[in-house]
């Protein structure tokens, strides 16, 4: 697993208070990890802060799973 994936996972565990084992790539923040719409806003802010990236609102709306977040951030960092 990449450094980015590790860090994303850690942020999700911290913010949603879920067990690390549940934070699989396909896990949906809302459906599987108990987040509500405000939690997801806060999660995206935490990603922006941690990775020094800008995630515009339309992009943020498409980030539904752990993998979505990792992919988006890896793409931004590679660019």
């Amino acid at each position, binding site marked *: 697993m990449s450094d980015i994936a590790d860090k994303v996972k850690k942020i999700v565990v911290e*913010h*949603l*208070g*879920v067990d690390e084992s549940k934070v699989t790539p396909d896990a949906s923040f809302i459906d599987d990890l108990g987040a509500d719409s*405000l939690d997801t*806003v*806060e999660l995206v*802010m935490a990603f*922006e*802060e941690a990775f020094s990236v800008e995630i515009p609102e339309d992009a943020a709306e498409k980030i539904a799973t752990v993998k979505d977040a990792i992919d988006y951030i890896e793409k931004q960092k590679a660019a």
Partner: protein
Amino acid sequence: MSGTATNGRRVVVTGIGVVSPLAVGAELTWKRLIEGQSGIGRITHFDPSELPAQVAGQVPDGPTAEGGLTLSDWVPVKDQKKMDRFIHLGLAAAIQAVEDSGWKPEDEDGRCATGVMIGSGIGGLQTIYDGSLTVSSGKARRLSPFFIPSALINLISGHLSIRYGFKGPNHAVVTACATGVHAIGDASRLIQYGDADVMVAGGAEAAICSLGIAGFCSARALSTGSNDDPTKASRPWDKDRDGFIMGEGAGVVVLEELEHAKRRGAKIYGEIGGYGMSGDAHHITAPAEGHEGAFRAMKAALRNSGGLTTADIDYVNAHGTSTMADDLELDAVERFFGDDAKRLAMSSTKSAIGHLLGAAGAVEAIFCLQAIRDGIVPPTLNLDNPARESVIDRVAHVAQQRKIDVALSNSFGFGGTNASIILKRFKD
């Protein structure tokens, strides 16, 4: 019947919850209060050394079993950062009260007949302060999505309703230091009017932060002369008093329509015996001469009491904040009670826990219920040299054993808002 309701519905208290500088827990707070302990100490929530007032009544951290605050026992860790401390403290008191009452609505009708009215004087002040710093440092887009719901005063009522499924009236009072009494009084009336059968009501406050202390310092409201001797700082009616001591905490009661409480065999702490309100129309922070607003609030409470007179009232829990206004309240109480003042006990429990602002009236109403139950009047600490004499026994230094059937509690707030509530022993 001897009830107080406009339509015959009587309201009793079936659950109590307290978070105070003396303890987390209604009974431990009461035990320490009547032992004469003080919950006042040097401020540790932030470094107060730049400010003239440096002492306060802070809720102690520690294991729940020892009366300390262990937040995770009340609010799940992942939800804690979504709420300001005043919501944490309010929920801790509300959960105690609900569990104490044993009320668990089993069906939709029961849930819809159960409401919440828990207010605060100030709300999420630390949250607002922190949010302001985020915005002013150019990070407005980083402001937490939980900033607004963390600061809003009615969110204790909101969170509690979500936790327990209480779908009745959901409301919150904001009347500065009169909040707690207004919440219990107004919620009682919702029950009397049939809007609910059960109401969880009270107040919470957590304004011991730099902004809160600095603000009250600027208003010249806080004691500044006892920074080196914190337990002596709060001294209602004493000639050396020099301002109030900020406290934090929460008081919440479960109010219940009498027949509803009897049907389920609930334990009854006492009955709401009367409730009165008034406005000063005088000054934003100072009471009028002779505290005539307090006089009218007490008179209104008696008018709604179903026939009680001043001769029936055994104990007054005074607003008594340890400011110059103490003697004005004393004037009003003496005038209101007339000859009955001679047999009256009156104390200010703010001498031990400080002034809990929006929580004060609710915590003090609970002390009245405990005084009635146990036949003990809590003391006024530090009343060494009364600024003026009175025929009223102000219970200096030590608690007194005394039969209390009816107690009255006063709360007055900035803006010139006054409320008095009468609690009485339940007699079927």
